[in-house]
């Protein structure tokens, strides 16, 4: 088979990981539609959180494809923690009492 991203011989697990990463990347479209068309700000925030979780998976998959998993795993861990902090901060920021909404 042809050479992989690092120039080594590509095996069948690499092909599987490549198509799986493509599948995870295609799942971003659903979240992007919800961010664009969500009726409330909470729908948009939960779409952004879903993109963050899928991006963590995509980082680990790309690291396994490029044989640099030891570096990409640290990036993915940092991204997972930042995603959590961001979603909780947005939830706290957009909360308002029942009287003055709508």
């Amino acid at each position: 088979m042809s050479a992989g991203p690092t120039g080594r011989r590509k095996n069948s697990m690499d092909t599987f990981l490549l198509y799986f990463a493509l599948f995870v990347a295609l799942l971003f479209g659903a979240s992007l539609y919800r961010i664009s068309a969500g009726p409330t700000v909470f729908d948009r925030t939960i779409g952004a959180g879903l993109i963050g979780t899928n991006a963590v998976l995509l980082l680990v998959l790309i690291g396994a494809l490029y044989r640099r998993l030891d570096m990409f795993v640290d990036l993915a861990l940092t991204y997972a923690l930042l995603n959590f902090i961001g979603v909780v901060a947005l939830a706290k920021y957009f909360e308002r009492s029942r009287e003055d909404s709508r």
Partner: protein
Amino acid sequence: MTWLAAALMVIGGVFLLISSIGLLRLPDFYTRAHAVGKSETLGSMLVLGGLALNQGADLTSVKILLILVVIFITNPTATHALTRSAYRSGVAIWKNSQAADK
């Protein structure tokens, strides 16, 4: 071992697909949060477990399992915080649902 890892990742991919379809198709914010909070967590854990199994036993695999634990704790917590914030802000439930409050 490789086949087991690939099988885990395919099952996780099915859960990720269900989560994204739920985010697209379900009628109000709370049902969308239900789809994202549970299905996305299980799908991410299965995919990361498959990747750790594919990597073998070393420090990188331990770090992937650390990402798995972080997602297992933070993803339902973030979804719960967001849903609580939306409920206290008075986001409307689906018009056909049979809830007693509001």
